[in-house]
């Protein structure tokens, strides 16, 4: 007998919020392998499963590479699948990730941002997510525990949408969000069923079925390969408007919205803007307010969607600004700057040539403090007034 959970508000960690969201979406299969700082996600799902709250195949795999293969196969067979990982686990499933994306398998995966191998650190950092940015996955980044829960639910709605059919990775900062306990409104199971009902009205996607002759993963040589690549790219493009629609729909159903691809905080009338993602956004909001009170017309753009890159909306948000700063929690090897900065800089034809500053902070659990954000805004402000500035700054 399955226990049914009603709507409730509870103080839970970011990891627990992800687990609640996954449970509420009733996956057929959960592939489970632990890694700090994600382990609580799959541990909580194991508890839901043991308590009769989650009815699924809970597969204990021997490593993340298998985990990705399991969830890929599940979705190819028409089921709903979920897994969670981080850093070492993410790179361990590297080949399988390309497979999932190339097969257009609508897997939903949590990636808790942690520094990848090379310098051993069990610490937050976005390099893991950056290292797979061209794998063909949709990548979202969230700011707080409520958003973790809500975005994970939206991730299933997005991944399985007939027009999309792409795997979706929901990223959140290790430690600063994974272990952060906040009050979270957890929808009842019926509410989420109702929200995802719309997927059932769409055409069914092609699936592997025993007894049929259909298979996936055959050779795509020459023009066949090119054609599938183009279709994948086109689907990526469609994610942008789709995610805005889904956000609006979620807001209508649950009363909470996040702006879709990006959120502009006091950015419309701002002279200078800081672009950033993840938990740092929360801290930045406070500093933006403080600087505004001092007379600096600063604004913030929160990057929620990273892949595909929200070219159009970000360009519109940044056009006309006097200087722009981008805060990265990772590095772009080869360009000596932050990766999101580099991609924002590529919007220059759309927004014009304005001073752009790259800030690299928050690597390996280093705290992105209010004081750091204050300094960043000061630097962007100086640049906007024609004073000399440094293009790339590493903090602290």
């Amino acid at each position, binding site marked *: 007998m399955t226990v049914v959970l009603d709507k409730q508000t509870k103080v839970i960690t970011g990891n627990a919020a992800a687990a609640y969201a996954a449970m509420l979406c009733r996956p057929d299969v959960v592939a489970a392998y632990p890694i700090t700082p994600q382990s609580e996600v799959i541990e909580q799902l194991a508890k839901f499963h043991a308590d009769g709250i989650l009815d699924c195949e809970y597969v204990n795999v021997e490593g993340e590479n298998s985990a990705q293969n399991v969830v890929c196969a599940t979705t190819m067979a028409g089921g709903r699948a979920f897994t969670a990982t981080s850093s070492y686990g993410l790179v361990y499933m590297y080949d399988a990730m390309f497979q999932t994306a190339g097969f257009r398998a609508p897997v939903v995966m949590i990636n808790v941002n942690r520094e990848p191998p090379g*310098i*051993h650190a069990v610490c937050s950092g976005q390099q893991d997510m950056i290292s797979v940015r061209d794998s063909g996955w949709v990548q979202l980044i969230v700011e707080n525990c409520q958003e973790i829960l809500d975005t994970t639910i939206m991730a299933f709605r997005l991944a399985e949408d007939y027009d999309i059919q792409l795997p979706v990775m929901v990223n959140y900062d290790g430690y600063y969000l994974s272990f952060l306990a906040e009050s979270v409104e957890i929808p009842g199971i019926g509410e989420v069923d109702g929200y995802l009902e719309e997927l059932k009205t769409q055409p069914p996607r092609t699936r592997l079925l025993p007894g049929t002759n259909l298979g996936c993963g055959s050779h795509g040589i020459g023009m066949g390969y090119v054609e599938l690549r183009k279709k994948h790219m086109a689907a990526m493009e469609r994610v942008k408007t789709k995610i805005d629609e889904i956000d609006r729909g979620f807001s209508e159903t649950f009363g909470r919205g996040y702006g879709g691809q990006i959120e502009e905080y006091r950015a419309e009338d701002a002279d200078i803007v800081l672009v950033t993602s993840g938990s740092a956004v929360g801290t930045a909001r406070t500093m933006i307010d403080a600087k505004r009170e001092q007379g600096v017309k600063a604004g913030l753009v929160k990057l929620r969607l990273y892949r595909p890159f929200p070219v159009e909306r970000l360009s519109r948000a940044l056009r006309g600004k006097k200087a722009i700063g981008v805060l990265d929690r990772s590095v772009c090897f080869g360009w000596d700057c932050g990766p999101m900065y580099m991609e924002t800089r590529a919007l220059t034809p759309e927004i014009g040539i304005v001073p752009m500053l790259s800030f690299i902070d928050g690597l390996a659990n280093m705290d992105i403090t209010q004081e750091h954000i204050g*300094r960043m805004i*000061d*630097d962007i402000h*100086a640049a906007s007034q024609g004073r000399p*500035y*440094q293009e790339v*700054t*590493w903090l*602290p």
Partner: protein
Amino acid sequence: MVDKEHQNLFETEASWSDASETVLCHHTGDWRTERPVFDHDKCNACGFCYTYCPPQCIVDDEDGIHYKADLEYCKGCGVCARECPKEAITMAPEGDYADDCRVG
């Protein structure tokens, strides 16, 4: 704005460290909240405790037959007590604790 002055923690380009300075001199004995107590009457000197000890801190006892824990390193994990086939090892709490509890 100029980056703050940074004092390098590593002399090398990658994360090299010298084990003789870090691991081997780390006296982990003070992590302990309980310690193994060896009963020589029950012990048959099979060496299981020596084999199973994770940080390999079981050493020869002074009598040359039995075993004891090197208390400079023993973290009190209790694996030796668990694995001893003769139940000759028990874990005893470190330090003194008050026997009385205030009632009411």
